């Protein structure tokens, strides 16, 4: 079969797909998953992961009375540290592990996944719907948390803070943090979704992934591109002055433009989602093995 024939066949196959049905199914799946997973006691620890820095900054807001303009530089670095070292490497990482691995593996544990497999929904649509639901939950939670951290950090500095935000680089930094936070949720989410389809217990591979994300900077640049944090670092507006061994968490070995960083992370996310679409076809309902 020639390339043209293959192309024409693929094109007609794509045109024959019921895309409107798929779209409505994704919408139903997202609504159901968000309803079931966002406001639930099972997710309290995820809320805590998101809110811990907000709580600390709030306490700092109340107790620390030094609110001069010279505080801006220090607080900006503290905020950068919170976002880059806590949220990107711990908070979002573990929250995504909890949220995204539960999407399929949790339903296996609860013995309810068969209901999703017995409806006229393509497995790829199921993966996409669940991934989007997980993304909405994690992004809503962590964007809110980062936004709250930002507001608390600069609002306590009074007019100097307002001036930094509205007349200085503040708003651009906020935009970068929110963008990077959303991308972190997408990237880690896709990885953990795939891990949950690959492994019965994704905790150990998750810990290994955490190690990989930490040591990736010492590897060649092509290998670094296989880590989520590689792209996030390039979107962070403030560099952290960290010396010694801990510099491995902040150093940017090979600068990449923000556009390429966003594009690269989205490509990585799509590639991992495609892998998940392949993996879900191997998944069988054998609850006794769980």
């Amino acid at each position, binding site marked *: 079969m020639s390339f043209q024939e293959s192309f024409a066949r693929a094109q007609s196959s794509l045109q024959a797909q019921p895309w409107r*049905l798929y779209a409505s*199914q994704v919408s*139903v799946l997202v609504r*159901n998953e968000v309803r079931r997973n966002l406001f639930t006691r099972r997710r309290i620890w995820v809320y805590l992961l998101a809110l811990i820095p907000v709580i600390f900054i709030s306490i700092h807001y109340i107790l620390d009375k030094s609110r001069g303009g010279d505080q801006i530089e220090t607080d900006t670095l503290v905020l950068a540290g919170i976002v880059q070292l806590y949220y990107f490497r711990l908070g979002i990482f573990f929250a995504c592990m909890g949220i995204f691995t539960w999407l399929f593996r949790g339903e296996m544990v609860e013995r309810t996944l*068969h209901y999703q*497999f017995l409806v*006229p929904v393509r497995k790829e649509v199921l993966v996409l719907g669940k991934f989007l639901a997980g993304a909405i939950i994690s992004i809503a939670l962590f964007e809110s948390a980062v936004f709250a951290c930002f507001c608390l950090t600069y609002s306590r500095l009074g007019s100097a803070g307002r001036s930094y935000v509205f007349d200085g680089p503040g708003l651009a930094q906020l935009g970068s943090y929110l963008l990077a936070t959303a991308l972190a949720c997408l990237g880690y989410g896709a990885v953990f979704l795939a891990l949950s389809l690959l492994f019965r217990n994704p905790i150990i591979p998750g810990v290994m992934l955490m190690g990989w994300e930490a040591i990736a900077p010492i590897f060649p640049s092509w290998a670094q591109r296989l880590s989520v944090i590689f792209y996030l670092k390039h979107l962070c507006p403030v560099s952290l002055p960290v010396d010694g061994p801990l510099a491995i968490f902040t150093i940017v070995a090979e600068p990449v433009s923000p556009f390429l960083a966003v594009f690269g992370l989205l490509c990585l996310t799509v590639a991992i989602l495609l892998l998940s679409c392949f993996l879900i076809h191997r998944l069988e309902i*054998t609850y006794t093995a769980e």
Partner: protein
Amino acid sequence: MTPDARQIVFDNVSKFYGEVLGVNKVSFSLEPGITSLVGPNGSGKTTLMNLLTGLIKPSQGAIYVLGLTTRQPVEFFRQVGYCTQFDSFPPGTNGYDFIYWPLRLHGFGHDQAAKLSNEAFERAGMAQVAQRKVAGYSKGMRQRIRLAQAIAHHPSVLVLDEPLNGLDPMARSESIALFQAIAKQGMHVIISSHILEEVDRISDRVVLMSSGYVVAEGQIREVRREVRDHPMQILVRCSNAAKLASAAFELDHVVEAKILSDGQSVLVRTRDAEQFYLLLNQVVSGGLVEVDAVAPADDDVNSIYQYLIGSDGGPA
């Protein structure tokens, strides 16, 4: 085997869980009507149903349902409804949502999905409890709501794994009437059940399974005829049991002719039922005896089960 648009076809299907056998080299095809899967625990009934609906994949072989496979899920699951044995539900769900949301995934709009949901609740006799949390349902209600979900989209193939478990006699009778009504519409109803009397009463055909193998399949009487190791038992009520017994004894294929305690009945065990019925015709037409009733005594699922599988494993 080639897929037929009316049949369910298992073509040399095997399933292994590692080194453990699920089912082995299963080949048969089913016409519309009620088919019962019968066999002891671990014989492979649920495995066969899970294979049929794509919850697990065959290690070898192929399965076609009305010419479709689970690789075409949109078309396939519009035709198939499966009421599993898993007694678990999404946490916090209420009865109505449990039926309504899967219907939305079928592509039905809100109004149509709501109408079908209400209809399914009515058919399952659960309209009063639709808005209650499933966690508060009794075992029988949970069984019925799973059944309601399986039939809500009007499938052409209904697969039911132990659907009568946990039901009270009234609900059991209503469910059986529902299965029979569905089968009468030319649809497939595949049931696994350990209640052999009910299987016998409602089934058009049976598939007997043991240790992962299909031991026999077909219409109950055909299967019984194939079991040649056990002579068929025929009960005859007549005016002169002794005469009939002595006439029967003259036939080579008659193994035993026992006059029962009422003195008017003979239980005949024969290796050739057709020949015995011919004899009976001759005896009646010759005026030797008057026959009140003739009935096969062991062409039911229970007897076939005993003969082919025995009672070692106990019924599933």
